[in-house]
């Protein structure tokens, strides 16, 4: 009993700091979401649930949420496929393995805002190098950022380029930690590389894959700076994601109370969605095994 009490006493300072860091901003945001804090009404008055009522009728927010789901899911799926492929490539004994491992990590080590500025220059339709290259091949120039569909594709390309290395890193770590015996057993049983991959590698990698996908989905759902620099949400509202919309409402328009309500709702929806996704992934990838 005394030991238990000692444990709590020693844990308390850390717990209090943790609570202060995590809990206070969250509780404060919830409180702000019930205020009318904006550019003319500073402070925490009581505004009831009017920010939430307004949010239900705010079509732009819900459209931005749908767009976010589309961008996040498609970019993370592509990152997973590419990251896994690259990890498998350098997992094997190939030449210059170490060089490639470092090379594949470079995009993740760059600053997202700076890289997005560079990507914007690459995508620049009249002055950028990408269209020059495409035209050299005899193909027509692509309006990368000026039509709705291509702007979304451009956004996904930048996201995939920037974050595939993260997926690669986690999956490579997973591959390197796998036991050798199941692979030896599969080889003795005469399984080819494809069968080994689907029946041995994939099931063994399921827990780490789920972790990597969830971490990336959480990060991808916060996509803001790429949108801000690349398209500013346009053309029209074609690339306006939820977090960019919240930024506009909160920091550009200074509707702090309303932006807090949007943030709280967004957080709740994300927790629910990601919990469901994690359960589905676990069922597909682990229970099947």
């Amino acid at each position, binding site marked *: 009993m005394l030991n238990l009490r000692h444990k709590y006493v020693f844990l308390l300072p850390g717990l209090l700091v943790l609570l202060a860091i995590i809990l206070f901003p969250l509780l404060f945001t919830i409180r702000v979401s019930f205020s009318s804090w904006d550019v*003319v009404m500073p402070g925490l008055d009581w505004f009831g649930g009017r920010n939430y009522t307004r949010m239900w009728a705010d079509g732009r927010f819900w459209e931005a949420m749908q767009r976010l789901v589309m961008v996040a899911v498609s970019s993370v799926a592509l990152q997973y496929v590419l990251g896994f492929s690259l990890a498998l490539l350098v997992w094997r004994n190939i030449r210059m393995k170490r060089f490639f491992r470092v090379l594949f990590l470079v995009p993740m080590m760059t600053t997202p805002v700076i890289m997005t500025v560079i990507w914007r220059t690459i995508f620049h339709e009249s002055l950028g190098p990408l269209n020059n290259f495409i035209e050299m091949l005899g193909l027509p120039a692509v309006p990368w950022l*000026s039509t709705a569909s291509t702007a979304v594709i451009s956004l996904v390309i930048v996201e995939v380029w920037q974050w595939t290395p993260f997926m690669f890193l986690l999956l490579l770590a997973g591959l390197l930690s796998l036991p050798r015996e199941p692979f030896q057993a599969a080889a003795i049983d005469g399984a080819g590389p494809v069968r080994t991959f689907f029946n041995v590698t994939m099931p063994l990698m399921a827990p780490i894959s789920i972790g990597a996908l969830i971490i990336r989905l959480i990060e991808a759902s916060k996509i803001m700076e790429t949108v801000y620099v690349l398209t500013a949400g346009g053309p*029209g509202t074609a690339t306006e994601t939820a977090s960019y919309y919240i930024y506009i409402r909160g920091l550009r328009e200074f509707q702090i109370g309303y932006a807090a309500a949007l943030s709280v709702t967004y957080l709740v929806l994300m927790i629910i969605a990601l919990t469901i996704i994690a359960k589905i992934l676990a069922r597909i990838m682990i229970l099947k095994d």
Partner: protein
Amino acid sequence: MRKMLITTALVALMAPSMVMAKDYSKYGIDKDVAGLCSYEAIDAKDYSGRTLSIITHAVPVMGEPTALHAKQFGELTGAKVKVVHVPFGDLFQRIMIPFQTGQSAYDVMFYGSLWIGDFNRYLAPVPEKYRNSKAMKLVTPNYIDVATLGKQMIQYPIDGDRHYLKYRRDVLENADLKKKFKDKTGRELQVPATWEEYDEIAAFFNGWDWDGDGEKNYGSAEVVKRDDLMFSAFISRVAGYAKHPDVKGGFFFDLETMTPLVNSPGWVRGLEMFIKAQRFMPPGGNNFGLGDEIFSFGGGQTLFSYSWDDAFIQAMEKKSRIRNKVMAAPLPGSHEVWNRKTGKWDHFDTPNRAPYITWGWTSAVAASSKNKDMAFDYLCFFSNQANTPHDLQIGRFGVNPYRSNHFDPAFWTEKLGWDAKVADSYVKTLSGMDDSKNRVFDLRVPGVGQFMSSLAAGVSEAMAGQKTAQEALDGVAREWSRIVERIGKERVRDAYANVVALEDNLR
């Protein structure tokens, strides 16, 4: 003896001026100019042991001159000067949050002048001695108006901004090209006086190599990217159609009822023209932000452009391949102007032009500052008559003409080597806006960020083809009504009355 007495007297008389003639050229200026905040006057002050906090834009635009003059001010007075640089997207909230939470975070702020409607209650009025200074007396009426709310000057003028037309002189004055244009259209090629003429000329010169450099050229570079100052470009496009010189009482709202006018036929026509203009822009031009517009026109890609000074200055840089091949002119206007009193389009034989005195950089001192004396001295020093000519010559500083003595063509020809005709067009265009009686100012009311953000979103939807011009602006009008309701009709009206007073020349 007599000779000696005279010499002594002369030396005695000259002594003060010899002391005055201290050399400050190490600060990069030509010479000090006597005045309230000259180098000499500021040098005589002692702010040792005191700290001045300044928030400004990121380097270089406005951030660089802020830091430069802060360093000089510190060296001259002994003050410690801290400068915080913030990207434009964060500047508003970085200033507003300390204001709202009662912190005295900054003594001096540099920001966009249109935020006066939100910031005014936190700003210190400019004291009389600065308002009556020689340098301030030279500030043109437009920029005194921009700095003033009601009858009180609360912003310190340090820059002058406006939108105007920039065009390629080498094209519009080229005999072969003039002939080609006339053969095709039956009309003379001349500087466009209306947006219809602008579009017609831009369409003709779009998509072919008219300057013979082996690259395709295009008609028009405009600021179209949403949330990248596009709302200002749109207001320029609309002003000629919707700002009727004989209809008073509001351009953005009907002041009496506070009904948004943003979906009236004049505004819709402006948006339709803006949408159409996308055909004459370079590839990707419908995603051009201000930086793209500057490099597109300034780099010689397009025939026309309109917005702030930057693209013109870029084109006139010493290494520019189109240096002295550009000219400035007033924004185009319209023969047809919407009259909201009669509900009809009125015809004007001479196109109606409505110069847009768009927002630009301004500065102010916080009412909560404990260093107001030092803060105003800093701003007065920043904009003294030795520093301003220096800053005007450096394009990246973002300081543009705002005093009557800046409109002397000789300054631009002698200091910057501009061609006399170019300099003449530049100063005449800029100074001519001060003479207009049909000006448009920004919507300087509380919540201007909300109004302009929703306007940009609506216009952007129409530009992207998601909605028609009328549908998009109807949506903006509904949003504006909701914003007015949230902020308070009377509060918005009171602030808007000050804008209308400027536009209707009631002062």
